[in-house]
């Protein structure tokens, strides 16, 4: 970390574990869970949020002294909406199938609480460089959870990873399926996303007792 001072690297590393936006701050769950049935969709969603939050934090931080505090929510929403439109158009142009699968959830990045939360809590009070790091760190923490959930749901639910059949072919009974293994279709249903996140929280808080609520 020659490039970053100790304080700056903390901005990136903290949200990855002990101050994770999803499991600790409870932000950004809205659009996160419904798209985690597949690993690919989770990764694309994480990258989109990384872009929106990183750039958005810089923009808000640059104009933070000009925005009148009464209308700041509308200003923030406009900035995010503009960035999300960029993401949406890029997805439609280069990954049309995927953008169909994500459907309205790309648009819902706008109201992802993680973004407004970081704008309010960090970008309004800090310079552009630190805001950028904070944005990247939080989006990465969000992405980590999304990718973990997507990994388990796709692996256990359809026996594939990124569409590749890693466990063998369920119809021709090769690989694991030769021993009578069955896909758990239940993992693909939306309620399981909630339960998987619940289990992640359980694991994380068992390892770090300081995070336990009373």
């Amino acid at each position, binding site marked *: 970390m020659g490039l970053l001072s100790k304080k700056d690297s903390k901005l990136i590393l903290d949200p990855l574990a002990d101050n994770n936006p999803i499991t600790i701050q409870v932000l950004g769950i809205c659009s996160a869970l419904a798209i985690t049935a597949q690993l690919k969709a989770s990764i694309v969603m994480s990258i989109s949020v990384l872009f929106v939050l990183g750039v958005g934090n810089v923009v808000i931080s640059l104009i933070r002294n000009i925005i009148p505090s009464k209308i700041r929510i509308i200003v923030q929403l406009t900035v995010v909406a503009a960035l999300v439109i960029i993401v949406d158009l890029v997805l439609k142009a280069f990954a049309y199938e995927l953008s169909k699968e994500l459907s309205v959830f790309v648009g819902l990045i706008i109201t992802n609480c993680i973004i407004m939360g970081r704008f309010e809590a960090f970008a309004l009070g800090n310079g552009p460089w630190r805001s950028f790091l904070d944005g990247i760190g939080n989006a990465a923490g969000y992405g980590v959870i999304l990718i973990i959930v997507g990994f388990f749901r796709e692996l256990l639910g359809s026996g594939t990873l990124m569409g590749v059949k890693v466990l063998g072919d369920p119809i021709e009974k090769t690989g694991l399926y030769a021993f009578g293994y069955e896909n758990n279709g239940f993992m693909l249903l939306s*309620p399981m996303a909630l339960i998987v996140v619940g289990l992640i*929280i359980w694991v994380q808080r068992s390892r770090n007792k300081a995070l336990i609520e009373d």
Partner: protein
Amino acid sequence: MEYLELFFKSIFIDNMVFATFLGMCSYLAVSKKVSTAVGLGAAVIFVLLVTVPLNWLLDQYILRPGALAWVGEEFASYDLSFLSFIMFIATIATMVQLVEIIVEKFSPSLYNSLGIFLPLIAVNCAILGGSLFMQSREIATIGLATVYGLGSGIGWFLAILAIAAIREKIRYSNVPAPLRGLGITFIITGLMAIGFMSFGGMLTGGDEETKEAPKEVAVETSEIEKTKNKETKIIN
């Protein structure tokens, strides 16, 4: 009949919280007490009821391809649908501010119980989600859009009321320490969502219902059909 069907469908089958995970942030953050949950739920119903028809009008007469034909011939070829995110969110933010001002002026008592939640609502995904689903499901008339807004709002209200009641009771239970608070709330919500899935067969009656299943939620509808067929087989 069409209205009634959409109404119940948006409350139970396509429930905002349990089927599409919309508005989860405020759902988890404000569900510690029943009284505050009722306040936020009421505010969500109200704002959805106003914004969905409003955004329907915007979509119909400004945004969708060819919508500007009423202005003049030369505008008929315009397609402004890429602007829908920014237009919808602007409408919502403005409406929320407007509602806040009006309620404060005319009913201070309502403002005291509802007012603190109104700023929260502008960033509630359930509100924007309502408008976006209205657009992507191509709801045909403004009446249906109003019914859809009302139904989705009531569905969200029911969900937050139920989880708040459960959380008030669960305080007296012996939950494993790391799961206390957030963890157990997630898992309970998951179980409730599984329960709500059983409403799926409500409208068309049993076996044929899979066609009606919410398309946006699960990517693999065919997988769901498989599991559902398995379940029905077991039951039979």
